[in-house]
């Protein structure tokens, strides 16, 4: 648990907005972590399945964020979440809706819970918590924007190259099926692209 909390502190201190003035707020957040969950590879993070509005921090391992692809009538990968990331059930937290996404452990994972109630209370007591929240979401937004530009690259191999260059940690931990879903191409297209360029993932 000690290492997990250190990992959470490190995350906050890595945000662009961080200065030592935030330390008191960060300690207040760390002190309110009230649950640690360990899941084995392949398990669904059931704690987020109901209409949960808490904030979750992935300390180690990788998570797959899955959604129902209505065009293919199947569950598909939406995103891969790397260690030292905050994630939430966006449908419930932002839209008060039943969750449309669920999280699956791609490897063994450890996650920490910071409850929404604790967030509200700390928000009242430490106004700087708002800036931490904004800075954290800014990073998520930047990642989403960058990934969108990758998803618009017309050549499959350019998308692969983007993942290898800008998301090396994810690239190293993805099998080909996951990689194909992450870059929005079919498995056949991915294999064709590798064959064409004589480049292989591993």
């Amino acid at each position, binding site marked *: 648990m000690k290492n997990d909390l250190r990992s959470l502190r490190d995350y906050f201190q890595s945000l662009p907005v961080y200065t030592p003035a935030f330390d008191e707020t960060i300690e207040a957040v760390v002190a309110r972590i009230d649950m640690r969950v360990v899941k084995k590879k392949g398990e669904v993070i059931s704690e987020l399945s109901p209409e949960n509005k808490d904030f979750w921090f992935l300390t180690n391992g990788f998570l797959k964020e899955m959604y129902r692809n209505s*065009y293919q009538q199947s569950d598909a*990968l939406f995103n891969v979440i790397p260690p030292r990331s905050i994630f939430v059930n*966006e449908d419930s*937290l932002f839209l008060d809706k039943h969750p449309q996404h669920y999280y699956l452990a791609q490897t063994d994972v450890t996650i920490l819970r910071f409850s929404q109630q604790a967030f509200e209370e700390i928000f009242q007591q430490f106004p700087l918590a708002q800036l931490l*929240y*904004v800075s954290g979401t800014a990073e998520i*937004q930047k990642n*989403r*924007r960058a990934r969108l530009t990758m998803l618009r690259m017309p050549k499959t191999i350019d998308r692969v190259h983007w993942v290898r260059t800008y998301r090396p940690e994810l690239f190293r931990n993805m099998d080909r099926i996951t990689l194909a879903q992450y870059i929005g191409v*079919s498995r056949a297209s991915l294999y064709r692209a590798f064959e064409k360029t004589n480049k292989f993932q591993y």
Partner: protein
Amino acid sequence: MTDRIDHDAVYNVLFANLRISSVEDSYKLREFSRRFVFKTYAPGDELWSLQSTEGDLQVILTGAFGEYLKEQDEYHLLRFYRKGKCTFSEDLLIYSQPAETIAKCLVEGVVASIPRAQILHMSEGNDFGPRLISGLINLSMTEYRHTTYEMLQTSVESRIKAALEQFPELLNVIPRKELADYLGISRASLFRTLKMFGDEK
């Protein structure tokens, strides 16, 4: 009279897009929406540019607009905004950073806007401002999520269908070359698929 109606329209868009639950916030939102000013934009006019220094919160009352990301001297269409949508540069308005995108008018329209400074001024001494900002962040995250759904479709047909679901007027307002770039497909694939859709009808 016209102004009152327009301010009502601003309120309605904000109310629909931001999750306002309390009567008190709803009252504040109505007061907030009265501070917006209106401007008509012609195709090509910019809502914000890379040189903009301060962000506005904008509400699209009519027309259509596109947001572009600049990469290696080329602009790529990132998102669309149409009637009933809020638009803003997240970099400028929320994160106080230089804009990495530009937004320009695609179809003539009227936009109501309020500068960031005025939002901050209105927020002094109350928690409406932070709640508004949180609402805008949530809105922006959700919009990005929807655009990502479009782009995760592996077949050209599904990509086009998903994009049309988000923005039904797409085919009428975006030149085909730009649309192909937006969808991450070749122009030939776009024309082939659109022809197939036409034949199906």
